[in-house]
């Protein structure tokens, strides 16, 4: 799909106005593709009376049917047979239900310029070899979690000398080995090469607290970086103020705040969001964000808190053009941030927690095959 590649190879990753025409074109093509190849998606567009030909301005993006992430957990929605997909991954679904998302080869091709451009812009890419300590899962061919692949991918942002994983595969499950990771950090502090710590923020926070309590602080080599991915959701209850986490990273590992990178993304919307120096996620050109009223799902004006609706024409294997997350958040004008990135900034307030609802009534229906006999 040439319109998609045109958007993803565009040279200015935060110039939304300059990319609007390309984005609309790619979104219309993407929507038409899914309508032609995914009967479930076509039925939704028909029922909501949406025709991709009617996409003329950015205001029209709100009319693209927004599919809740919950729908991808319940229904297998694909726009191509599995044999033609590059890979299939799952969301990190902490409560037992997963989204199943297929990636086409074209989406992987389109991600290359996006990741390179944003990685360079945010100084993630370096030619200096580095050791990697991953506070996340050790890759395995049975682990289809998007976040596992993302963290593995992040180890290539500088030539990787070694990789240590805090969650190690043993047989068919994972066991946490924070102690092993701590030993690795102590050893790597003496290495002539910098270290990159890649992981879940909650693991980092937990690890830093443990190390500090035991008096095991280290000074990683200058140029070392911390890359945070995957969100807080695995241990949401322990969410801490970012400032506390950043201060602890400097105290315990010697990594200053400007060497800490935060990333955001979702399996259903694998756009490479990077936090700016002021810790805000500005919307890159590959994505558009709408905030919707939690009661009516109608689009809200800038600044108001609502459900986050992510739009990107990246994927053709799965109809994720417009995805309604179960996160609440708000948008702020880019120039209010002061970091120099002009596009609006997205702040995530938290998760609605759909999958946490476990009810006796719901269980009854499970047995009955979704509660429908007729």
């Amino acid at each position: 799909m040439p319109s998609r590649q045109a958007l993803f190879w565009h040279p200015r990753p935060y110039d939304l106005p300059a990319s609007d025409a390309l984005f609309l074109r790619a979104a219309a093509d993407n929507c038409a593709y899914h309508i032609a190849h995914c009967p479930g998606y076509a039925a939704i567009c028909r029922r909501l009376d949406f025709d991709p030909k009617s996409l003329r301005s950015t205001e029209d993006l709100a009319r693209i049917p927004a599919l809740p992430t919950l729908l991808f957990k319940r229904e297998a929605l694909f726009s191509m047979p599995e044999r033609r997909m590059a890979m299939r991954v799952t969301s990190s679904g902490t409560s037992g239900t997963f989204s199943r998302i297929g990636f086409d080869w074209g989406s992987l091709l389109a991600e290359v310029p996006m990741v390179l451009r944003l990685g360079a812009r945010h100084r993630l890419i370096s030619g200096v070899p580095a050791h990697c300590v991953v506070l996340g899962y050790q890759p395995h061919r049975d682990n289809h979690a998007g976040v596992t692949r993302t963290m593995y991918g992040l180890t290539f942002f500088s030539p990787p000398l070694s990789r240590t994983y805090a969650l190690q595969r043993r047989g068919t499950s994972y066991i946490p080995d924070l102690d092993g990771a701590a030993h690795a950090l102590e050893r790597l502090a003496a290495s002539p090469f910098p270290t990159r710590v890649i992981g879940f923020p909650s693991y980092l926070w937990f690890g830093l607290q443990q190390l500090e309590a035991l008096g095991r602080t280290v000074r990683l080599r200058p140029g070392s970086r911390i890359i945070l991915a995957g969100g807080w959701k695995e241990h949401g209850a322990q969410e801490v103020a970012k400032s506390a986490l950043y201060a602890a990273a400097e105290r315990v590992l010697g990594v200053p705040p400007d060497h800490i990178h935060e990333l955001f993304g979702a399996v259903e919307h694998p756009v490479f969001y990077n936090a700016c120096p002021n810790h805000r996620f500005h919307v890159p050109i590959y994505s558009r964000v709408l905030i919707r009223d939690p009661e009516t799902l109608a689009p809200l004006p800038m600044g108001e808190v609502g459900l986050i609706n992510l739009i990107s024409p990246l994927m053709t294997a799965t109809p994720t053009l417009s995805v309604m997350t179960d996160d609440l958040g708000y948008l702020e004008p880019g120039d209010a941030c002061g970091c120099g990135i002009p596009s609006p900034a997205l702040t995530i307030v938290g998760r609605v927690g759909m999958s946490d609802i476990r009810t006796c009534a719901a269980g009854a229906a499970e047995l009955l095959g979704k509660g429908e006999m007729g």
Partner: protein
Amino acid sequence: MIFAHGSLLPDSRLPGLLAGLEGELNAALAGPPLPAETVLAALDALGRRLAAGEFDALLRRFLPAGELARLGEVLPLFTRDVLEEKLRAELGPERFSPRERRQTTARFLPLGVLLHVAAGNQPGLGLFSVAEGLLTGNVNLLKLPREDKGLSLAALSLLTEAAPELAGFVYAFDLPSSRTAELKALAGLADGIAVWGGDGAVETFRHLAPPGCRLMEWGHRLSFAYLSGPPAAQELDALAAHIAATGQRLCSSCQVIFLDTGDFSAARAFAEAFLPRLERAVLARRAGPWESARAALSGYTAFLERVTAGREPGEAFFRGRGCSVTARPDRELELSPMEGNVLVKPLPRSELLPVLRRQKGRLQTAGLLCAEEEREALTALLARAGVTRITRAGRLSDPFPGEGHDGEYPLRRYLRVVDVEN
């Protein structure tokens, strides 16, 4: 955290505790029996203090926003009046007294050790289940649900603080279901297991329970409202308030509003007219954007699911602010999308029994809205169809003193009869 010997212990003490547990349980069983009066007094005192709001500040730390009110729904159960009524209703006026038979005397003894597996959808459920076990004199092991962030532990601490003689009869474990080795060890020590919750939990504990262990399955149920004739406005408002208050998350919550008619257009008209009532009830309760978002996403996702499955044509989806009403032409009792997203279906009384029989073993409460002169006939019909509770509009989830549980009297199941030849 673990609760044992009347105090809270860190999880690291679990292996040691488990190693010595059999001996402790045997000592409790060999010791003096637990008088029901002690338990009654302790539960009544705890219930009073909870109801007076004495611990609200403490409980707020353990309960998500809005759940404190839902805890209030089970608190009326922890009063002497209600508990005594429960003992009378379930065990008869003689309660635990021996019954003289022709050649024997029947004595009523505790089953022994009960393992309670609590579900997370109603705060206070674990405490309630343990209370039933204590009333019947059993030693109780409670497996906390994942959602219980400390409420049960706090309540058990308060209970045994006030009545130290209960301390040897209550243990609680914050064990996830994946810890099968530990759970198996607990199940192996139990004479009976009371499992609340989903089929997954029931299956797990059927598997873990040794043969001969009595399994009490308080599994999932479906409830509904049945409307015959023109309903009074305040009854409809009460039903709407019930739907909003429970979030349709309880076994007793209304999932479907059935109308005594075969005419789908009547169901559609009712759905449209009911929406503003539901909307008022929902908006009056909503604590913030989280609940609204959950409601809107549940309703919207369910709608899209029907569309992708090609089942939506012929249905009528009415979306309100933070709620929805969907009229469906089929007659089945099924789970709604919940969170204030209710279903409406036609079900003429002539078809009621065969339709509900298809869900036998899953039926619980029917909220009946009808003319008084029809009430007895429809009640009898619902009861014959397998419903185990029949209430007025909007009272589906209200606890009633002395009522059974899913068609049974649980206290009877927590006891055993010992026949002694005279």
